[in-house]
Each structure stands twice: as structure tokens, then as C-alpha cells.
């Protein structure tokens, strides 16, 4: 594990990704301590204050400090995105592996269902689910998880299918190993690396998807300072106070880039051919 981390840091993307995400994590943990104001504190004299000494990133229409809101907002955004992705990829990975192992009719049925779901664009599907279940942070999370699962199932299946063709799996069957054991000990370890990489990259999408849902009013509700909501709030004052959109927008972008880079780095670091 430490070895993997060392190799991750050796890749340029991995190292930058780790640094960015370290900062994001610190903000999630210590955000409230770092924030100069409470996110709900209204400074009536400072309404629409431009970025300056008093409000580093400016203030919104109620005079709430934008920096504080972004710092607090990390807690509403990043863990939720992580959780949604993990739930979605885990479900997808399990379904995909089982589908590949079962083969035949089961595989056919599962994969055609996946195809059907994949035919609907991810954002649209998430929108559909979120609007059916009613707006809220939890439904947004669930919507993202459901939107992610089919794609993940497809990827895992193809990797598992390739692993299933390998002679070591045939050797395990010929040895008389149980099906569970073959899936857990022979196939899964070979599936896990691409799943981890894919998951990491998907967190980046989840951050943006979550923000999009909030922006559209289907995710977190005011007075939460979830980043998508901040962008949505600031949109009305785009001309007069662009910082209200730029600050949370940059936070979303940087976090997404961080996860993307980490995913790229992990892909290189996890390649078993280079393991020494």
C-alpha cells in the first residue's frame, strides 16, 4: 500500500492530484476553523462587497462572506460526491462481475438492461430520478449513484470477462474451486485496479453532477452553501458581482481536476506490469 502511494507520487499527475485533494480534504475538515465568518452571518453594510480586505472573495446579496460559504460548502459537496460515486460504482462493479461470471442468459439479460439505462444520458437520468423523488441532497446523491451504476457494470464486466478467459481461471475451475472463491480470489483482484481508477475519475463527474443538480434546484436547498447552489445563487448577479459565481465555480473545477489527475496517476501506478 505504501509502495503504491510512492509510485503514485512518482507520476506527475498523481502528485498534483494528491496535493490538490489534500488541500480539499483539509478544507473539508478544518473549513469552519479557517473561515473568517459564519456562512450565515449577514453583513448588511457589505452587501455585494467586491473581493477585498474585509471579504477576500467578496460577499453576496445578503452580505454573507463568499470565502466562508465556499469553505463551508466543501463539506456539503465533496463527501456527498464521494459517497454517491462509491455507492454507484460498488453496485455496478458487483453486478458487472457477477454478470461476467454467470454468463449466458443472465449476462444477456443484465447487459441489455444496462444498455437500456445507458441509452439515457447520465445527467438526464439523474434529473429524472431527482425530480421524481423530490428535491433534496439525499435524492441527488441517490440519483447520481443510480446514474453511475450501469456504466460501471459495463466496464467491470468487460474486465471481468477478460479475466474469466484467462487460463488461471480455467485452472481454478479444473481444480474444483467453488464459484464464490473463483469470483473473490481469482477474478476480483484483477478487476479492482481499473475499478479504482474509474471510480476516482467518476468522483470528478459526481462533483460536477451534484453541483448541476443543486444549480437546477434539485439538490441541496438554501441556506446550504453547497457549491452548485452558490453558483445558482450568484447567477442572478453575474454582471455586477461575478465573484459570486467564479469562486464556487473555481472550487468545483479545481476539485474535479484533482480527482481526474489522481485517477490518471492511479492508472499508471496500478499497472501490474510495472510492479517491482
Amino acid at each position, binding site marked *: 500500500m505504501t509502495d503504491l502511494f510512492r509510485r503514485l507520487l512518482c507520476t506527475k499527475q498523481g502528485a498534483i492530484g494528491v496535493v490538490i485533494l489534500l488541500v480539499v480534504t483539509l478544507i473539508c475538515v478544518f473549513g469552519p476553523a479557517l473561515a473568517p465568518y459564519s456562512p450565515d452571518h449577514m453583513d448588511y453594510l457589505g452587501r455585494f462587497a467586491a473581493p477585498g480586505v474585509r471579504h477576500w472573495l467578496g460577499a453576496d446579496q445578503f452580505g454573507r462572506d463568499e470565502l466562508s460559504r465556499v469553505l463551508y460548502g466543501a463539506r456539503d459537496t465533496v463527501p456527498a460526491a464521494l459517497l454517491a460515486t462509491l455507492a454507484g460504482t460498488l453496485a455496478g462493479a458487483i453486478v458487472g462481475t457477477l454478470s461476467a461470471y454467470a454468463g449466458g442468459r443472465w449476462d444477456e439479460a443484465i447487459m441489455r438492461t444496462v444498455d437500456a439505462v445507458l441509452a439515457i444520458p447520465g445527467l438526464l437520468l439523474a434529473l429524472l430520478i431527482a425530480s421524481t423523488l423530490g428535491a433534496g441532497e439525499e435524492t441527488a446523491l441517490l440519483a447520481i449513484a443510480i446514474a453511475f451504476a450501469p456504466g460501471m457494470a459495463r466496464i467491470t464486466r468487460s474486465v471481468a470477462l477478460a479475466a474469466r478467459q484467462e487460463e488461471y481461471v480455467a485452472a481454478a475451475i*479444473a*481444480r*474444483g474451486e467453488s464459484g464464490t472463491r473463483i469470483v473473490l480470489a481469482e477474478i476480483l483482484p484483477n478487476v479492482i485496479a481499473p475499478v479504482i481508477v474509474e471510480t476516482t475519475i467518476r468522483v470528478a463527474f459526481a462533483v460536477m453532477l451534484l453541483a448541476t443538480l443543486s444549480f437546477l434546484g434539485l439538490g441541496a436547498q438554501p441556506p446550504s452553501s453547497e457549491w452548485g447552489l452558490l453558483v445558482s445563487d450568484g447567477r442572478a448577479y453575474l454582471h455586477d458581482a461575478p465573484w459570486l459565481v467564479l469562486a464556487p465555480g473555481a472550487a468545483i473545477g479545481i476539485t474535479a481536476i484533482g480527482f481526474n489527475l489522481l485517477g490518471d496517476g492511479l492508472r499508471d501506478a496500478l499497472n*501490474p506490469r510495472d510492479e517491482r
Partner: protein
Amino acid sequence: MTALLDIAHLTLDYATGHGVFRALEDVSLSVAPGEVLGLVGESGSGKTSLAMAVMGHLAGNARLAGGSVRLGGAELTALGPAAMRAIRGKRIGMVFQNPATSLNPTLTLGRQITEVLERHRGLSPRAAWREAVSWLERVELRHAEALMRRYPHEVSGGEKQRVVIATAFAPHPDIVLFDEPTTALDVITGARILDLFHRLRAETGVAGLYISHDLGLVARVAERVAVMRGGWVVETGPATRIFTNPAHDYTRRLVDAVPRPHRRLVQDEPPPHEVLRAEALGVRYGRQRLFRKRAEGGGIASVSFDIREGEILGVVGESGSGKSTIARALTGLVRAGGVIRLDGMPVTRMRRDYRRAVQIVFQHPASSLNPRQRVRDILARPLRLYGGSLDEIPTLLRQVNLPPEYASRWPHQLSGGEKQRVAIARAFAARPRLVICDEITASLDVSVQASTIELLLELRRRHGTAYLFITHDLNLIRQIAHRLIVMRDGTLVDRLEIQALGSGNEHEYTRELIAASPPPVGEETRT
């Protein structure tokens, strides 16, 4: 006589992440007009790098560190890409190992030849077409006109290789480079391609550089042979001399490793007690799709045979004849009809005692070990499954001539031969009575193959294990098997004692197979 192709002091480096790797070191070779030079070496010896250097088709990280390549007196290494393109295909023809990838799948076979003719001989499309048809006829393809309009996927591997050969010879090159042209083909098809090669040479007088790992094969097609190892040419000389009286130690080892059908490695006769019997074994492949059922080839029908205690039963046949299907049926990898008997008792469900008695070693060392498990974990599984102590792991490794420290290694840290040894150790961890060897030496170098066979025979002496040895290499199987079964198109066509081979009682097809794999040079006189 002036040389046609003259390679002098050629040195080639590859820049890699771990520094500079020297692929060729001071290589000097020459090919006279009309001569065929065989280039023999095991994997990693630099023979393909040399071919690529001659064609000016080097990888991006390759650096020529010195030396020269002259074709008819003109220096090739100094030429730019455009000038090189004019020479490649026109003056140097090429035939690669895998006909499936050396033809463009989106062009008709005819187009692939006419393109070369139009480009390198300046023929008009109409003349090129006529010339192409005549070339297809010269490489003994029937219905040449119809073939011109076919795509590569519509013809067989042997036909594709003939088209590739036609494309190589059609522009009247000075020299043709052959890089393992028969390795990807099965025995009989490969033998016919070699016949064609001999005939075309006699007709056209083209010089050749014939690259192969198979010393026995090269000795048959080339007048002179160069032996490469680790980027060096260790020995060059007339083919017969190299084979009968090698000067260099390494060459001698290579020559010794070539299977000679008349040099038996197994002398004993197995006891009459039978271990396993298959009666009317049948497998039909067909994939159940949602809406339709599709039959596929490769199945077997009504195959019966028996294996005695400690016996080596050879299974031979071309690819697709169902050899491997027998292995898969006996190990429960496919559902099979018919009856399998272990010690006379019918096996209805493959229980642990059957699984333990019948073990299998697969063809590809790279894929038969799980890349995510250490050697220790790989060997621990059968020990746990069939009852055994993990303390046996060092003994198991030593038994296959691997140091016990290998237990903590990952598969990618092993060479192909070492991986195959671990797979053999895994099979023997179960203390089996029958080990199925499915083409286990096919992807190994000759010398590694020889030591693997030696190991198997040693294990048999020690444990009295029987082998079901599946192979396409008749020379090899004639050295070790007690009996042979011959498969063709999923049916068993011949079943014979090894001594009966050559007595004239064989099936016609068996005779054809044997004719297609003649014994190596120097042995022919002794038949």
C-alpha cells in the same frame, strides 16, 4: 562474389526508462545474390531487431550506434524515410509471422497486390490486375480471379500467407525477408508454405533472409545459417555443418534441444493397469444467445481412448481439430457427453478425488498464473484444497528446479519457462495420477522446451504420473509418447503404438502429418 545484402558491424540501442538497452552488438552478416541465409535465435536474441534495421523500420526509441547496411552496394542506413519507402517493398520484400495482421482487413486481396504492382513497377491498373492474378496462380491459389475480390477475413490463414508471399515476390525484389512465416500456421499448412518457398526460390532466384527460432526448420530452407544470442552473432556457417558439427557451445545446446524423433527419451513400458478411460466423449460448442442458437466449430464427437498408469499418450492434430477440447472435457471445463472412467469407475460428477487425480497444465505461461497472486499463494491453493501442508511449498519449487525463494515472487517477475515450471509445480502439488499437458511447450524457446520436457520426464520417473500430452509437434511427441491418438475435425482418426509409426499401417492422415514434419537435418539418413 559480392554480397547482395551486406550488414557490417551493426550496433543498435533502445532507449528505455531504465537506461540504454543494446539490442544488436557488432553484427556482421552478408547474403549473396540468390542465397538464403537462415537467422536463428531465441526470443530476445535480436533477430527481429535486425530485420527491422534492414528494412529501416525501427521503433521510435531505437538508435543506430554504428555499422552499416548495404543493399547491392548502396548504404541504407543513411537514407531518409522517403527513399527508404521506395526500397521497402520494391527491392526488399517482407513476409511476416502472422498473416492475419499483415494484410489490411479493409482492402480486397486483389487490391493489396495491385497496389504494390502499380506503385513499385509502375503498371497500369489493368496490367497490374492481370499480373496479380498470375501471381496468385503462381502461389498455388485456386480460383485466383475470385480471390482477387475477396477480403482477408474470407480466406484461411494459409491462403492469406500465400497472398502475403505473392505481394512480397510480385515487385521482383532482390531479397525477401521472412520473419517466422510458418509459426502461426498449423503443421501441414506450414509445410505446404515451405514447399512453395522452395519452388519460388528455384523459379525466381531471389535471395532470402529467413528468420526463425526453429533451428531444424531453418536448416531445411537455408544454405547458410547465422545463430544469434543476446544481440551477438555467435556462429555463421553452412547449414549442414552448423547442424551436424556446431562450433560454438550455445549452438550445440540449441542443436541438442531440437527434438529428434528417433532419439527416444522414454524407454520403459507402462504397466497394463488403466488410470483413465474416455468412452464416446463428445462436446458440441454452441453459444446460447437470447434469440438464436449458434453452432461453433472445435467440438469433438465420439472420442474414445484410455491411458495407463504412468503412460504418455500423445494427442496430435492441426489447430481446430479438437485436441484441446479433449483436455477441457476431461477437466470439466466444458460439458461433455459420453463416459469418463477413473480406475474403471464411471465419473458422474467430478468430485474432489477426481479433480485431484487429473490435473492440467495450460499452453500460455503468461495467462495460467494469476498476476495478482504470489507464487506462494498459487501453490498454496491445491495444497489447501486437496489436503497438504504449506511446508511443502519449498519442496514443490525445488522439485521443478526453482529456488525456494521464488515463493515470494509475483508472476511477472518470472520468465516464460519459469512460469511454466510454477504451473507444473501447481499441478503436482495435488499429487495427481494423470497430468494433461495442453501444448505446454508451444510458446517456449527450443532450449527451454527441452528442459521443460526433461523436467516432466523426471517427475514421471519419481511419481509414476501418466501424461496426456497434447501437441502439434510430431518430432517431440515421437520422442516421449508410448501411444498416439490423431485428431482431425473433431474425430479420432487414428490410434497407434509409437513403434507402429512408419510401419505403413497408419491412417492416411497420420502419414500426411508425419510427412509435414520431417526430422531435422542430419537425421534423415537414419530413417
